[in-house]
């Protein structure tokens, strides 16, 4: 057949529809007329002949429709008809349309917003070429229970030289250097990398070049690559930046390139940063020559495409075995790889999927609501539909018409939902915990739009199905017959009740999840951190290491700084220490109890280590339990001392007196000294409120100074006044010193709860939406049922039922509905709660209190939602009701 001819003739008849129809009409008319004439010739009367022809060939209208339905243009045309008809019907009932479209828009919009986050964080590959080949290589020591730590430099060089597995590999570590010479001195996030870093990630610079192997040699000229954001904000997007020198920690580096904003360093998300070769870093370069015992470097590598994961395993084992032979200290360490994508997004996968699941439930509830509305409408439209079936409309045609209406609702919902999504994403992104990986790339993109569209079509099918099924089952004889009444058949009513029950069950699941998270969050905020954050301001002061290179200088500087601060009015107390709890976690050191037999090789007792000046404990409100705190007489020349936390005392000196005992440890590891325990202080939550306080070691700052630290000041003055004081005192000592990371300690504590707060907030929001939708759903079902039963209720009242009994009857009905929904929801809620167990804190997944509260709320909402229709029912005038219809 000729496709062209078919299409051409199709178009012709599309555009000359009138004429084509007229011709068919006339031709069919002539045909039937001739058939009648033939029959009359055989002796029938005209009437008989007509009837006989009609019986043989069916109704001419149906025949015409049938003949035309074979052509493709017929489909276009009827689809267009359906669409116009659907638009007209929806416009005729604006209330229904607005409610349905808004419900869908809410569901689709919320889903698309969360999907944008999931898409950006979990689904979209990392923004590197062939990101699937990238792995994180880490070291582990299974026998000591250590896993996923960084790599030592000698191990890395071994790996780098082995080209069988990886086409390229690079190590990286982050810290901050002081950038001076452009505006106020500031710390700039610095990524210390080995030279292949950019080639592993296959990243090209915006300007200039990236590192070459020569840049990584010791003694090479210091070079630096800037991020585009830093270049724009700090250097005014100077096009001649390449070749210029900048000062980092008072040392000159030549800028060789600028990386575009789209490039992000794995694990280190700051947009404003610099990259320098490891050999040029004042801090980490010393570890290039150490024997391989410091496991500090994150190593990323690009696996050759032909290599299988089994091959990687055996090859890495060979390298580890060789290293163990070469460096006895490395015995027991093994090398592991993990896809970079999983490393980066592993932690957030569960919370994000939880949110996606929750928002999916919201959409289901929205669908159930719209289905309910449609069912009610379908019941009131059953006459119209029965009439159309009686006039010869095919059931499939009617189903198509109804589905077109649903699809139109769905698409309208998706359009507004997309707007909701744009707004949702814009609102969501600032609320997201900044620790969320890849959150720069969260946006409503093509995939999200496709998702929204699919969602809308999928949902229209879901909510459209029930009404269509009932319409298809409609029987014109019954609907149009004498006895047709306003009472409705059991099918749709049962379906509507089921939908309402389902909504309640889903809302139950969501609310239980939200309730559990809220209770966890309440538990978390009620945890005593072990320190008192109120009225304490912290700020980071760092000393450039090229200028202040000896511990003696660091100690002298901090002492002077604290003295000057203390002299200012309004400063209650000040101290320097680092790291602070929950700010930068943590310096974990291994220690030895002097006098105890040495531990088995490969195992170690560890504790988190903090050098602190004497007033640290009073500023932070950490109580002294026994012994004494540090004081001014603990200096670099006096006896080395230490304070331990209660947890350490309990774990390692269970039934002995730790005071006077000695511990041997040091930072860095070669500075190990034996220290006398002079006191025990209270436990603090060093890592997060959700984790049990671990053992802590404190040493006097003067005995183990650092190149800068966190200054903490307790003051009754406003935080901004305190910040100004810290800044001016620091700059009075050296105007080139940066004062950064300034914050009230309460903010730090709050920030540590950003992730749980975020998910609690969102899930709470979804729970509220679910509750609202379920309420609307119950309201819809009950008020519709009341309006359909006006006659029945009227009879009851005419026979003497008091209004209060009608009211309580309706309320009882709702209660039965709600209770059934709750009964169905409880097992689902318990299963869901088990899924999110890891996100809970101090709350069991099966928490009767939460379940009971949620059930009560649902019962309350159900009663509230049905109260209005129940009142209406109680006020029915029997006379009016009996005359109804």
């Amino acid at each position, binding site marked *: 057949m000729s496709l062209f001819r078919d299409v051409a003739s199709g178009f012709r008849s599309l555009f000359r529809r009138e004429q084509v129809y007229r011709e068919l009409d*006339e031709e069919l008319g002539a045909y039937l007329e001739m058939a009648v004439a033939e029959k009359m010739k055989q002796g029938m009367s005209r009437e008989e002949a007509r009837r006989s022809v009609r019986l043989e060939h069916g109704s001419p209208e149906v025949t015409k429709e049938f003949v035309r339905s074979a052509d493709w243009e017929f489909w276009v045309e009827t689809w267009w008809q359906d669409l116009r008809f659907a638009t007209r019907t929806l416009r005729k009932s604006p209330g229904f349309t607005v409610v349905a479209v808004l419900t869908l828009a809410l569901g689709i919009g919320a889903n698309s917003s969360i999907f944008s986050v999931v898409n950006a964080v979990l689904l979209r590959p990392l923004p590197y070429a062939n990101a699937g080949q990238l792995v994180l290589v880490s070291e582990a020591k299974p026998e000591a229970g250590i896993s996923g730590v960084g790599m030592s430099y000698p191990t890395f060089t071994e790996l780098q030289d082995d080209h069988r597995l990886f086409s390229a590999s690079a190590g990286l570590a982050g810290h901050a250097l002081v950038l001076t010479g452009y505006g106020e001195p500031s710390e700039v996030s610095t990524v210390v990398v080995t030279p292949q870093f950019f080639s592993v990630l296959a990243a090209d610079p915006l300007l200039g070049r990236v590192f070459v192997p020569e840049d990584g040699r010791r003694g090479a000229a210091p070079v630096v690559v800037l991020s585009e954001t830093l270049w724009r904000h700090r250097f005014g997007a100077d096009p001649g930046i390449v070749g210029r020198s900048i000062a980092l920690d008072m040392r000159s580096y030549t800028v060789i390139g600028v990386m575009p904003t789209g490039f992000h360093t794995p694990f280190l998300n700051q947009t404003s940063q610099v990259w320098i070769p490891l050999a040029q870093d004042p801090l980490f370069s010393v570890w290039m020559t150490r024997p391989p015992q410091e496991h500090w470097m994150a190593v990323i590598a690009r696996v050759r495409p032909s290599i299988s994961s089994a091959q990687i395993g055996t090859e890495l084992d060979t390298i580890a075995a060789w290293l163990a032979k070469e460096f006895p200290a490395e015995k027991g360490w093994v090398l592991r790889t993990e896809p970079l994508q999983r490393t980066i997004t592993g932690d957030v996968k569960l919370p994000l999927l939880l949110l996606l699941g929750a928002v999916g439930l919201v959409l289901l509830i929205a669908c159930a609501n719209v289905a309910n509305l449609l069912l009610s409408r379908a019941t009131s439209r059953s006459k119209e539909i029965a009439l159309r079936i009686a006039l010869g409309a095919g059931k499939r045609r009617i189903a198509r018409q109804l589905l077109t209406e649903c699809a139109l609702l769905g698409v309208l919902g998706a359009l507004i939902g997309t707007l909701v999504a744009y707004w949702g994403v814009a609102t969501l992104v600032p609320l997201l915990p900044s620790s969320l990986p890849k959150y720069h790339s969260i946006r409503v993109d093509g995939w999200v739009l496709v998702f929204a569209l699919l969602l809308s079509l999928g949902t229209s099918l879901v909510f459209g199905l029930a009404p269509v099924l009932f319409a298809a089952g409609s029987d014109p004889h019954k609907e149009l017959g004498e006895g047709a009444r306003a009472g409705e058949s059991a099918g749709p009513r049962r379906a509507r009740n089921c939908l309402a029950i389902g909504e309640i069950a889903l809302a139950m699941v969501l609310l239980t999840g939200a309730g559990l998270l809220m209770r966890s969050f309440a538990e978390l905020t009620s945890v005593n951190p072990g320190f008192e954050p109120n009225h304490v301001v912290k700020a980071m002061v760092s000393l450039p290491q090229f200028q202040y290179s000896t511990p003696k200088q660091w100690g002298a500087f901090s002492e002077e700084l604290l003295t000057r601060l203390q002299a200012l009015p309004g400063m209650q107390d000040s101290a320097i220490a680092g790291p602070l709890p929950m700010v930068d976690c943590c310096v974990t050191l291994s220690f030895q109890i002097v006098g105890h037999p040495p531990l088995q090789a490969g195992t170690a007792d560890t504790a988190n280590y903090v050098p602190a000046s004497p007033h640290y404990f009073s500023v932070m409100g950490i109580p002294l339990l026994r012994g004494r705190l540090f004081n001014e007489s603990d200096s670099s020349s006096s006896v080395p001392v230490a304070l331990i936390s209660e947890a350490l005392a309990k774990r390692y000196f269970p039934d002995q007196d730790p005071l006077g005992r000695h511990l041997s440890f040091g930072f860095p590891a070669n500075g190990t000294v034996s220290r006398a325990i002079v006191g025990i202080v209270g436990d603090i939550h060093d890592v997060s409120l959700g984790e049990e306080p671990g053992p802590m070691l404190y040493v006097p700052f003067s005995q183990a100074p650092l190149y800068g630290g966190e200054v903490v000041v307790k003051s009754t003055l406003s935080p901004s006044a305190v910040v100004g004081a810290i800044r001016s005192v620091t700059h009075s000592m050296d105007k080139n010193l940066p004062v950064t990371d300034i914050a009230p300690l309460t903010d730090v504590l709050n920030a540590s709860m950003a992730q749980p707060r975020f998910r609690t907030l969102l899930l709470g929001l979804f729970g509220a939406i679910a509750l609202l939708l379920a309420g609307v759903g119950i309201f819809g079902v009950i008020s519709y049922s009341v309006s359909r039963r006006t006659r029945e209720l009227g009879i009851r009242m005419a026979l003497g039922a008091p209004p209060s009994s009608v009211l309580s009857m309706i309320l009882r009905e709702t209660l039965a509905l709600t209770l059934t929904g709750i009964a169905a929801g409880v097992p689902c809620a318990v299963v869901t709660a088990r899924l999110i167990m890891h996100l809970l804190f101090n709350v069991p997944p099966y928490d009767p209190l939460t379940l009971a509260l949620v059930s009560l709320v649902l019962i309350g909402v159900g009663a509230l939602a049905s109260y209005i229709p129940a009142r209406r029912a109680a006020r029915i005038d029997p006379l009016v009701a009996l005359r109804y219809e």
Partner: protein
Amino acid sequence: MPDTPSDLVQGTLDMLILKTLALEPMHGYGISVRIEQMSKGVFRLNAGSFFLAIRRLERYGLIAGEWKPTENNRRAKYYALTPKGRKRLNDETREWGRQVAAIARILEAS
């Protein structure tokens, strides 16, 4: 709903119409009467299926229609075989013969 032409072997209605028109141009009713007569009443055509086939054939260019007055002075659309339709008829007749012979052989063999 009109019957689908399943009581005829699929596609044979097209061939029968072409065959009928091979003799002379005819209007729709004439074609259907002729088919009924020639089949001695075995095939009774329903207007729906019949016009479906007519429109299909016309659309593929196998037959061409023309409005003309009938013998009783009515207007009717007369269809005639196009050269393409004639060729198709020949092809299909040959193919039909081959198939019928083959089926007959199979039925006799068993």
